[in-house]
């Protein structure tokens, strides 16, 4: 509670106790009126002042003014009738309770959500002559060496110049995957240093560092308002005047015919109490804010309430293959020996030797499959034959590693492989030894991710790839994706995507790695970039950013958005519904002032509590 909330809480408490006490005291007449005026003024004096202010500025539909008229009206009626002032004081009391609760709940969720996003480092350690000094990270210049102790957050992006450690990226990705780092590694702010002391030379300013950028993005997100928010803002602008005019009509027109002034004025006052639009207005931005905050804890950054809204309407998801569904790096998938003298292990051994000096991605994957390549074998005369492969002399034997053409040239009788992928043949002294199949591995969660998306209500899933038909077909079947387009050049991807876009009825999302598919990302209703941690370009281009590269997060994001929008709809219908119901019941005399208070304050409290549910992430 802040000072203002504490003060108002005390006012509410005192007024409530006074009001209850007064009911047990025997007083009547003028004395009673003044006695009840005390709690009324204690709890409502600021509203009266605001009402005067509104009157001075000719604001007929000022909330405080309406509340003042309603309560003063109730007082007047009570004087005229039975002298029961409880209702008048209570309306003001409950109105203030509502205001207090709103302020408290919003302040609390503001704090909760910013704590969720607590990746902002407060200080940086800089080495000076007197030892370590904690400075404001804003003051650290590029190129400064900062020291990060175990348990501390890395404050600024940089490169490690001394030390090695394990980093935890949970605050950024929502996934607690420890990452080993050592000298020369680029590290990003927001990660927590788990064990070793690190010296880091900063490569960016604090404001440009990953943690600051992400925070800014999430905070700005709720400024991009959704359609629901704009609708409710417009509705509120019309709603209050309409209800107030109805109240005026109710107070004057029926009594002209029937004459029962008290009853109709009482009903008009009920209208004034219900005319306050706050319950509607508060719960919608709060729901979005909570939804965006909850998602960011999971490593899903949604760049605007409007995107959260669109995401919830996604019926079609178009995915890039490489880097999204597959790892995007090549791995040895199979080794087939075709010569009794060379088993699989030996084949890999020879291939890795031959590829020792090559930087080609295929060479990398071969070396990775045989980790301790540099043994005591002699490797000499390495010769790269462009478009064919590599040849080298290993322990005196000539080993040729390459494609089918290369095998033809060295006279080796190669066999075709039944597996899909890039096939690397190996021949020793011109005699065929076997082959290695290299393919892009499917991500561990990819299949689950596709199934989850379908269960989250995505009707159509497409896969686009520049790869060959054969590889695309294999991946699609394995992942149970029925629609795919293969052998697409980057420009084809855009036209292919546009075709899908124009053929779909619902919203279309595109998921890519954000690096070379920016044009498609921007064309989509919602562009989702994966594995964007540390990639500014991807964060820039997309509407939704998945910090790590787990495809399961796509369905998670969709589920979060659906839940959030469901809550928004519940709140809109519930709040408007209850208000209209109470208005109708009030007009025909079935609802009294207490019902009006519920329609105003009760609905607001329920709507706020419901909105906070958006923070809880659906699994």
């Amino acid at each position, binding site marked *: 509670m802040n000072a203002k909330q504490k003060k108002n809480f005390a006012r509410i408490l005192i007024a409530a106790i006074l009001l209850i006490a007064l009911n047990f005291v025997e007083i009547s007449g003028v004395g009673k009126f003044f006695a009840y005026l005390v709690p009324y003024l204690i709890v409502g004096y600021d509203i009266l002042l605001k009402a005067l202010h509104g009157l001075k500025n000719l604001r007929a539909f000022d*909330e405080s003014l309406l509340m003042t008229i309603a309560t003063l009206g109730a007082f007047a009626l009570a004087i005229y009738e039975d002298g029961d002032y409880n209702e008048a004081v209570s309306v003001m009391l409950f109105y203030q309770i509502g205001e207090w609760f709103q302020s408290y709940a919003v302040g609390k969720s503001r704090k909760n959500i910013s704590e969720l996003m607590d990746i902002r480092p407060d200080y940086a350690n800089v080495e000076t002559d007197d030892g370590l000094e904690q400075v404001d990270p804003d003051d650290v210049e590029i190129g400064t060496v900062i020291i990060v102790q175990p348990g501390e957050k890395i404050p600024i992006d940089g490169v490690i110049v001394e030390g090695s450690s394990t980093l935890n990226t949970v605050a950024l990705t929502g996934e607690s995957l420890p990452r080993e780092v050592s000298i020369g590694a680029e590290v990003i702010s927001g990660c927590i240093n788990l064990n070793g002391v690190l010296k880091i030379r900063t490569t960016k300013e604090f404001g440009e560092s990953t943690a600051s950028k992400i925070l800014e993005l999430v905070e700005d997100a709720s400024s991009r308002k959704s359609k629901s928010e704009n609708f409710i803002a417009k509705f509120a602008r019309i709603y209050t005047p309409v209800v107030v005019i109805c109240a005026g009509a109710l107070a004057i027109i029926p009594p002209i015919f029937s004459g029962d002034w008290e009853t109709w004025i009482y009903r008009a006052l009920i209208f004034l109490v219900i005319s306050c639009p706050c319950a509607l*207005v508060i719960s919608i*931005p709060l729901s979005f804010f909570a939804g965006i905050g909850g998602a960011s804890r999971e490593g899903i950054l949604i760049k605007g309430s409007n995107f959260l809204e669109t995401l919830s309407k996604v019926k079609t998801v178009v995915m890039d293959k490489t880097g999204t569904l597959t790892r995007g790096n090549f791995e040895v998938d199979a080794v087939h020996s075709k010569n009794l003298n060379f088993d699989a292990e030996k084949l890999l051994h020879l291939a890795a030797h031959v590829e020792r000096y090559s930087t080609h991605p295929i060479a990398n994957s071969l070396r990775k499959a045989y980790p301790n390549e540099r043994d005591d074998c002699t490797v000499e005369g390495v010769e790269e034959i462009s478009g064919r492969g590599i040849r080298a002399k290993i322990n005196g034997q000539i080993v040729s590693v390459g494609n089918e053409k290369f095998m033809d040239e060295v006279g080796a009788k190669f066999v075709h492989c039944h597996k899909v992928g890039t096939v690397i043949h190996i021949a020793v002294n011109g005699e065929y030894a076997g082959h290695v199949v290299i393919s892009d591995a499917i991500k561990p969660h990819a299949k689950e991710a596709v199934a989850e998306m379908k269960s989250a209500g995505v009707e159509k899933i497409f896969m686009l790839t520049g790869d060959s038909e054969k590889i695309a077909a294999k991946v699609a079947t394995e992942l149970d994706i029925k629609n795919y387009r293969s052998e697409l050049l980057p420009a084809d991807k855009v036209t292919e995507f546009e075709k899908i876009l124009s053929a779909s009825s619902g919203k279309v999302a595109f998921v890519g790695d954000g690096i070379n598919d920016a044009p498609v990302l921007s064309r989509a209703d919602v562009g989702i970039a994966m594995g964007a941690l540390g990639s500014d370009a991807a964060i820039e281009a997309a509407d939704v950013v998945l910090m790590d590269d787990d495809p399961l997060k796509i369905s998670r994001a969709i589920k979060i958005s659906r839940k959030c929008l469901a809550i928004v709809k519940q709140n809109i219908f519930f709040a408007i519904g209850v208000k209209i119901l109470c208005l109708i019941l009030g007009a025909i005399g079935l609802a009294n002032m207490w019902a009006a208070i519920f329609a105003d304050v009760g609905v607001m409290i329920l709507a706020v509590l419901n909105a906070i549910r958006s923070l809880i992430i659906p699994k």
Partner: protein
Amino acid sequence: MKKTYKIDVDCANCANLMETETKKTVGVKDAVVNFMTLKMKVEFEDGVDAKEIMGRVRENCKKVERDCEIFL
């Protein structure tokens, strides 16, 4: 030119009223008031003095909501 200001306001509807008033102020091209983060983004017309305009924005906002504050 766009600038962001911190604000203080108690209710969501008042924040919307502030947004409407700010947009109506001469010299302001567009404005967004974010009640959840208590921030106001104002886009000014070309070649105006932001400080002077914000003074008027603050005055106009105070008219609709006495309790609000814009930290200039």
